[in-house]
């Protein structure tokens, strides 16, 4: 059913193109050529052609397994295009990728055939029949180029300079992490600058203990696999340990069910490590709602009714950031926020007492946990930053002198 609808949409687009353009005489595109993109994955071909001299309203691309067909209408192409990247199969998961395919290009004019609209509830067979009729009518117009044979070619590795540069950076980062981890495990002291927000977290937990109120921890609304959520979970481990040591209460408010499950495990582990497993309360790690603003409303309800003394907003936040931080401000809580979402940082900076900006969020998790792997990762990213600064300065000087080599090394081609 969905396939039929997709076909229908493509046809509607084709019909819309057809209805918009001026009337012109018949002439097919000529000199249709096809080449496999260098370092491509073997799923696409680059087609180029010479357009007909008259005005067109677009092209329709046909694809077939042999030079004599059968042809399938693949996609409409804009009238001003002379190059196009065409897929050799529509769905590589369901179709075998052929070694050879053939393409033809139909020039579309106002008097070209219009695809019949297929109702959404029509069967796949009916849709295929309608499509075959449309392709036949296109082929009958004479506005069709000669078929071009395309031999697919898949490259195992992409050796364009920018890809090589990217690979080198990733390898260098990996090597640095390995070297630093080894050094840390041998007892070497890896220096990390202390961030003011780290002290604030401990002060906040202490304040909550003194006031007899809970600490609220919000790990953002990102999925578990997001880097910021992972960092938030790492910090949560350290925070829950500290909360347990202080014999305070902590509420964790989660937007994603699976994040709630992981947060539950992390908090439990924190309480166990601190030596207070009995103080752990599973009901305090709560799933609120996976809808962004419903989650915000629920979390605000916690802030208003359970009056936490300290609010920690660490993770991935979007439009809810200001709503949460403002409510916490009204509640007179100490608020420490941290996110790498550049668009939300201004709100946290405005409404919170301390804000961990961007990478400081990742640095805090490394600093608090002192896990050799996290510390090494942070050190490694520091070296990559210095490399980037050097490259930026050299690249700007070189580009200003008319040599774009460095910027080319970093520009990944599509």
């Amino acid at each position, binding site marked *: 059913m969905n396939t039929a609808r997709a076909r229908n949409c493509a046809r509607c687009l084709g019909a819309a193109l057809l209805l918009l353009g001026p009337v012109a005489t018949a002439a097919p595109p000529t000199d249709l050529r096809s080449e496999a993109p260098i370092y491509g994955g073997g799923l696409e071909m680059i087609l180029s052609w010479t357009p007909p001299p008259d005005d067109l309203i677009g092209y329709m691309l046909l694809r077939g397994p042999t030079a004599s067909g059968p042809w399938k209408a693949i996609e409409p192409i804009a009238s001003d295009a002379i190059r196009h990247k065409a897929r050799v199969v529509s769905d590589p998961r369901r179709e075998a990728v052929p070694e050879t395919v053939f393409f033809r290009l139909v020039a579309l004019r106002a008097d070209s055939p219009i695809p019949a609209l297929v109702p959404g509830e029509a069967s796949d067979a009916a849709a295929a029949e309608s499509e075959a009729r449309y392709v036949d009518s296109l082929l009958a117009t004479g506005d069709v180029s000669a078929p071009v044979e395309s031999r697919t070619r898949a490259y195992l590795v992409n050796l364009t300079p920018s890809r090589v540069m990217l690979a080198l*950076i990733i390898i260098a980062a990996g090597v640095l992490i390995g070297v630093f981890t080894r050094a840390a495990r041998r007892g070497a002291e890896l220096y990390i600058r202390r961030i003011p927000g780290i002290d604030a977290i401990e002060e906040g937990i202490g304040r909550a203990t003194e006031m007899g109120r809970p600490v609220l921890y919000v790990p953002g609304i990102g999925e578990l696999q997001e880097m910021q959520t992972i960092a938030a979970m790492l910090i949560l481990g350290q925070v829950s340990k500290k909360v347990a040591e202080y014999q305070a209460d902590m509420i964790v408010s989660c937007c994603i069910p699976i994040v709630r499950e992981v947060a539950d495990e992390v908090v439990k582990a924190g309480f166990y490590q601190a030596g207070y497993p009995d103080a752990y309360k599973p009901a305090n790690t709560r799933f609120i709602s996976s809808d962004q603003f419903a989650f915000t409303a629920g979390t605000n309800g916690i802030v208003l009714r359970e009056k936490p003394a300290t609010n920690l907003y660490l993770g991935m936040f979007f439009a809810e950031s200001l709503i949460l931080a403002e409510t916490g401000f009204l509640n007179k809580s100490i608020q420490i926020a941290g996110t790498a979402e550049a668009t939300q940082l201004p709100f946290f900076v405005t409404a919170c007492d301390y804000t961990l900006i961007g990478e400081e969020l990742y*640095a805090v998790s490394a600093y608090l946990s002192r896990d050799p792997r996290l510390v090494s990762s942070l050190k490694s990213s520091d070296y990559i930053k210095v490399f980037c600064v050097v490259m930026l300065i050299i690249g700007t000087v*070189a580009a200003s002198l008319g040599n774009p080599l460095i910027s080319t090394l970093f520009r990944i081609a599509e």
Partner: protein
Amino acid sequence: MELSTATLLGAWVSIFLTICILSFLYEDNPVYKLAEHLFLGVSIAVSVVEAYYGTFKPNMLDPVGRAATAVASGSDPGWDAVSVIPLLLCGVLFLKLVPKLSWVARIPIAFLVAMFAGLKLTGEANANLMTQVAESMPNLGQLWIDHGLWDWSADGAGVISGLVLVLGLCACLLHFYFSAPHNRPLRVVSRFGVLMLMFGFGASFGYTVMGRISLAIGRAQELLGLDRSLEQNAVVHPRIATLASIVLLVGVLAVWKLRGGKPESDEATES
């Protein structure tokens, strides 16, 4: 003009709930809580239905069904058979309910995180590192020829903007350098980086606040019936709905106060 009962009721409920939420401007009260809990409950119900029909059924149940049919008829299930893996992982997650086997539930979570880490590695490095660096190396000579030092007619393009871009970016990067203490030379660079960040945040703040004000205007328009045609307003009567909601709300709040009602937060503090 005729509107369905559901549309009419929906419009009135929407206005009533907007007023309920706005009642928080007075203080936390039962009507606000009603709207909040209704929002939470409905959102969870909707997300469950969405997850089932949008993800679970088309991406797992349907392919597994097709694969089972194919196997039963002796044909090749193809890629549909792969959908059994997420089904198994999904089932394993429920082992968290069995205390002795709860550790097994970590496997799908580890799978999820590891898979995305691998998938995103090059994409993130490309989008957030390579492209950013490539686009931050301006040709200052060309900027001087095209715009001079500063061109008001081109949104301030010019050599100064180019230099601010490169030097500001370098300073911001060095502000986030954690492997050395911020002693004198690095502190100066770091301060410049923070200054650049604050300029950026200020601009972003102003831009987003404008967006929020636009949302508030949207709600006010709905309450006053300015977002509907005159024909629709003649049926919905949004201003009457707004007035009726306010009167009802004031009445409820008055009764609540007369009965000694207090915000739950105050009760919690007192206890």
